[in-house]
């Protein structure tokens, strides 16, 4: 009887430890946020985003950091760096821009766009240098 009870307790602890290890491994190896399949938390125009940073850089940085945001703006430039596309959104007379570093899978879709077109881009805002910087960006409908 005692042996049976011991086996049950041992089994329970082994199971708990196994589950713990699986959870810890999953947590340790958790993937980066999937921007493409995630809903944006904030929706705004490129110029509004720039204006917010110019008014309160630290506060705006805290507000948007690590959140997915969707910006609407006019394409000022399309370039590439190390095989990944970069779309710059900027009003013609503005000083600053929103520089969107696109995900590798977006290159083909970007070919259909031209300078001057309005587009929606979803991504993660990392802050402001001379421009607002967004990474892991994807085209949004």
């Amino acid at each position, binding site marked *: 009887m005692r042996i049976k009870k011991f086996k049950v307790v041992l089994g329970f602890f082994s199971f708990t430890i196994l589950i713990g290890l699986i959870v810890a491994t999953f947590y340790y190896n958790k993937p980066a*946020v999937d921007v493409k399949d995630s809903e944006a938390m904030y929706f705004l125009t490129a110029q509004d985003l720039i204006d917010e940073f110019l008014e309160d850089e630290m506060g705006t*940085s805290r507000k948007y950091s690590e959140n997915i945001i969707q910006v609407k703006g006019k394409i000022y430039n399309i370039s590439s*760096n190390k095989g990944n596309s970069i779309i710059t959104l900027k009003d013609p007379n503005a000083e600053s821009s929103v*520089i969107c*570093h696109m995900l590798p899978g977006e290159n083909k879709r970007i070919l259909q766009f031209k300078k001057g077109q309005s587009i929606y881009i979803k991504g993660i805002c*990392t*802050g402001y*240098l001379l421009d607002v*910087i967004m*990474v892991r960006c994807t085209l949004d409908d």
Partner: protein
Amino acid sequence: MIRNMRGIYFLVFGVLFMSGLRAQEKFLTKEGYVSFFSHSIVEDIKAENNQVLSVIDTITGKIAIQLLMRSFIFKKALMQEHFNEHYVESYKYPKATFSGKIMNFDQLDNRNIETEIVGTLTVHGVEKEISTKVDVAIKEDEITLTGNFKVDVADFNIKIPALVANNIAKTIKVTFELHHKPYK
């Protein structure tokens, strides 16, 4: 902190706009590359940043570099999270900056040469004077700086919890590659 940030803006804008606006005097990149690498017995950690801002004044050899800590991309999301939230506290210190001078810049004329770069590196709100060797490649329409240097994590008041102390090296290797184009 705010005073430091204003100082850096002043420097960047200063390098860009003061002493006239002759385009060929200012070279700039907004897509510079900086990575850091930590080797320990437990694991290797690498993070890369491809959104580095760097401006060179070719008359004086002055250089100003800024990068966002949150732009560093890690292989593992958890590492990136811990790096930003617990180690470098990006919500308090969102940028790392370097302001300094490329030595003997006026003597480097359209060629590849190794020289020295000296200045102040600011990370996690802590300033430290550094000097390192840099390979400079000068062409008519591009100035490229490449090199690497080592920094001690403790010098920048970055506290690593004892639990993961063996996972992170005490000395980190920083690598940079900056392709500057004429500022227009």
